[in-house]
């Protein structure tokens, strides 16, 4: 009886708000069955109530506990902390009372509006867009929620609303000295019919931020990631679960026919074999069994596919002289490069190349799918960068309605661009459909590497002309490779005032699976641009810092990062014998970044050692400055890894590397002695921080090498063998 009355009582006070920004804020009371904490109208059935309650961005309880939904995939970039901080800041919440929950997958409510003015809201975490995409709308949601609290207290105390202010989780009436904790407001909640948008002027000024730009606020996921309890999809276990693995071709796109099906089917522990266009799935009652059976498959591969003709090193060598391309696109044209070249005092040409690199996220791809026995619904567990697209993709693959797909977003053991494709989730669904049981489908590291989707290799011909004073007056950048727009980013040089510029992209199809890789085209392109500028500067006898100062003279924000990095590195001060510094600049996802590397090289082995790295970045407001630094550090180390050692090669369509013994990632022994990051102060909207630092690494190291040896490194990665060959040439 008592329980019942509690529920009735609360239902009469249940509140559900639709705000102008499309946000919904449930303000509920404590002690209720969770399913009944909030809803819209009387008379809705419980199912709806559950859904509606989960649709809230923020939930305040009578005991002061505040729950904020985080709509983003957490792959290490820290959005699970940063997004709630944005809302909590405007709400003026006491951060110690905030708890973060993963939002339901509902793009209409939780989608990011940050994909362009006319784009529909989507749940996709790519291109370092998460914080900058949600920044405005989450501030608005926080501000509107705070307004509801103020409005309620103003009514209860019969004071004008503008006499009220807030302290963390507390409404304050200074004139009378009265205070009311947010939790207490729940009992007197009075929700206005409509709440207009809170204007920028009414929101907190950056100098009043308590949570944003606060170095001492840590990530919410550190504890669970230090005691083994964080749940990646790899860790999920569901009742009756069986295990699936897939044998895919050594050549991308090859199709299988199984030679020993009867023998395979006779194997103990096998549940089913599932034929896919590009592989054979093995489902077994244990993971060890599935893996063992996978090795026993005898498959005849039809390799009559484009990729089979592809050998990466030969192809890359051929690009320099290739005249026929599948397609040529003009990416940029400014002024008249041809005329400027013709009148230039001196002209330059240099070629740059880069090999394929692999994502190597530490958690190999995997997903769990439980397709219902009647095959009309499914539940999925996975880590993905695109949670908003899973239901649709799975529904398509299974031929069911998207509403019938329940998706559970797990932590991602790394994304880096690989997990915005849903191939692995669909595979799990297809295997589950075949066996009518929940299936945990795992890619082995070898599968993940060999059937990966790589950052494309490319060839870049750089040409430039200088005037009599050595200023660059013409700059031409021609890129050749497969991967379309994957090759295009980072070529615009918006911060270098060169009057005549052109960028062209020549596309050659190789049939290899390609994908965005942290900072996409910026890695190879900034390498070529920054390296070429230093080659020209060296020939002109100019200092690389001075050259960039001139080029950026009209771009104070970019220049600021240059000056700061130079100051941090003490640019120009004498160095120990055998050391040199190199500098590079890049912009990525709105963040501007300069990096300086100090290196030495072992002349016998060709091994480059990075001793110090300094970087200054302007990324606007830093929602979580310590994490922003961590992203910068991680981006630089991942950059070093790709620049110094990562190399994926393909011969006749077959990837030559298979695991971490021959695909070499940066290891601890090779980290710099110091890695310093400066976040430049800013009041402007946040920019993307996850990829800002990766593109500058190649240029900084190559330019340090040029300063040290007078020789240019023009082919990524700078493996010891390659470096040695350059030194000995």
């Amino acid at each position, binding site marked *: 009886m008592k329980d019942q009355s509690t529920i009735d009582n609360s239902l009469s006070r249940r509140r559900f708000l639709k705000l102008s920004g499309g946000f919904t804020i449930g303000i509920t009371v404590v002690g209720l069955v969770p399913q009944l904490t909030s809803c819209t109208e009387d008379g809705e059935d419980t199912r709806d109530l559950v859904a509606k309650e989960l649709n809230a961005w923020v939930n305040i309880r009578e005991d002061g506990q505040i729950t904020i939904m985080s709509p983003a995939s*957490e*792959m*290490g*970039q*820290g959005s699970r902390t940063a997004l709630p901080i944005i809302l909590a800041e405007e709400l003026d919440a006491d951060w110690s009372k905030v708890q973060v929950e993963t939002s339901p997958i509902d793009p209409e409510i939780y989608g990011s509006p940050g994909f362009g003015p006319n784009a529909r809201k989507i749940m996709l975490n790519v291109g370092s867009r998460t914080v900058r995409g949600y920044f405005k709308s989450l501030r608005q949601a926080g501000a509107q929620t705070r307004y509801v609290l103020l409005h309620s207290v103003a009514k209860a105390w019969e004071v004008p609303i503008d006499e009220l202010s807030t302290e963390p989780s507390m409404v304050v009436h200074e004139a009378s000295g009265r205070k009311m904790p947010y939790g207490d407001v729940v009992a007197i909640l009075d929700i206005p019919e409509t709440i207009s948008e809170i204007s920028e002027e009414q929101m907190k000024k950056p100098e009043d931020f308590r949570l944003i730009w606060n170095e001492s606020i*840590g*990530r919410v*996921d*550190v*504890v*669970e*990631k*230090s*005691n*083994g*309890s*964080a*749940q*990646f999809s*790899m*860790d999920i*276990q569901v009742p009756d679960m069986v*295990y699936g693995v897939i044998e895919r071709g050594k050549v991308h796109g090859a199709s299988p026919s199984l030679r020993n099906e009867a023998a395979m089917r006779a194997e103990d522990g096998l549940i089913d074999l599932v034929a896919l266009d590009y592989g054979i799935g093995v489902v077994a009652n*244990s*993971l*060890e069994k599935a893996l063992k059976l996978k090795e026993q498959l005898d498959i005849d591969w039809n390799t009559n596919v484009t990729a089979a003709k592809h050998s990466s090193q030969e192809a890359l060598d051929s690009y320099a002289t290739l005249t026929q391309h599948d397609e040529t696109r003009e990416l940029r044209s400014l002024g008249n490069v041809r005329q400027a070249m013709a009148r230039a005092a001196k002209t330059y040409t240099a070629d740059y190349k880069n090999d394929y690199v692999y994502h*190597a*996220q*530490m*958690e*190999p791809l995997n997903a769990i799918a439980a397709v219902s026995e009647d095959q009309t619904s499914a539940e999925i567990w996975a880590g993905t960068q695109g949670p908003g697209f899973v239901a649709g993709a799975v529904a398509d693959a299974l031929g069911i309605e998207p509403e019938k797909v329940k998706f559970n977003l797990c*932590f*991602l*053991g*790394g*994304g*880096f661009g690989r997990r915005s494709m849903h191939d692995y989730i669909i595979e799990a669904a297809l295997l589950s459909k075949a066996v009518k049981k929940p299936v945990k489908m795992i890619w*082995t*590291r070898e599968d993940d590497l060999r059937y990966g989707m790589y950052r494309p290799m490319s060839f870049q011909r750089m040409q430039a002309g200088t005037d009599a004073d050595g200023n660059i007056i013409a700059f031409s950048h021609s890129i050749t490779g497969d991967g379309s727009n994957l090759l295009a980013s980072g070529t615009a040089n918006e911060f270098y005032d060169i009057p005549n510029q052109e960028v062209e992209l020549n596309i050659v199809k190789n049939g290899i699976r390609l994908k965005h890789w942290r900072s996409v085209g910026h890695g190879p392109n900034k390498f070529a641009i920054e390296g070429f500028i230093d080659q020209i500067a060296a020939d002109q006898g100019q200092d690389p810092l001075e050259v960039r100062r001139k080029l950026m003279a009209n771009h104070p924000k970019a220049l600021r990062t240059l000056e700061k990095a130079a100051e941090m590195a003490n640019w120009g001060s004498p160095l120990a014998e055998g050391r040199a510094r190199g500098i590079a600049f890049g912009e990525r996802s709105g963040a501007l970044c300069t990096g300086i590397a100090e290196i030495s090289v072992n002349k016998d082995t060709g091994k480059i050692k990075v001793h110090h790295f300094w970087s200054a970045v302007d990324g606007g407001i830093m929602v979580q400055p*310590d*994490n922003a630094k*961590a*992203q910068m*550090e*991680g*981006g630089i*180390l*991942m950059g070093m*890894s790709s620049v110094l050692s990562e190399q994926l090669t393909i011969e006749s369509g077959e990837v030559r590397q298979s*695991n*971490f*013994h021959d695909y070499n*990632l*940066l*290891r*601890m*022994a090779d*980290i*710099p002695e110091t*890695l310093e990051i400066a976040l430049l102060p800013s009041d402007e909207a946040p920019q993307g921080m996850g990829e800002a630092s990766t593109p500058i690494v190649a240029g900084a190291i190559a330019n340090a090498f040029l300063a040290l040896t007078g020789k240019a490194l023009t082919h990524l990665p700078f493996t010891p063998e390659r470096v040695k060959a350059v030194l000995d040439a």
Partner: protein
Amino acid sequence: MPVFSLKVNSSTREVNVDSGTSLLWVLREHLGLTGTKYSCGVGQCGSCTIHVEGSPMRACTLAVETVAKGQKITTIEGLSEKGDHPVQKAWAAHQVPQCGYCQSGQIMQAAALLEKNPKPGREEILQYMNGNLCRCGTYMRIYKAIESASKEL
């Protein structure tokens, strides 16, 4: 299938698996101790690092029968009761994890190092940790966290 008896995190657990099954699959899929991670399966990444009789080992390279003779196996779940091992505390203080996937292995390796030598020098830390990959690039913080945990010991 044989039954193996394993001493894991101070309890004794029985599993029914083929001999030759890797300890990693036993821990993760049969015993539900999923803090220990699979990443390479061939001893190259350190994500699956556990302690056997106090020494760091790669669970993916150990066949279950080799650790079923009463050896004491410790996984990240058993490193400390409340997640408050000095290394874990230092990990929080330095905000080490990003995606977090490699971190159980990193922590187990670091804890073993400090057990062996509470005051390791720079080179020793770098070399001891060299088998543990972190793709997110948290190495700078791992290094600092180990240094500061060492000061606490």
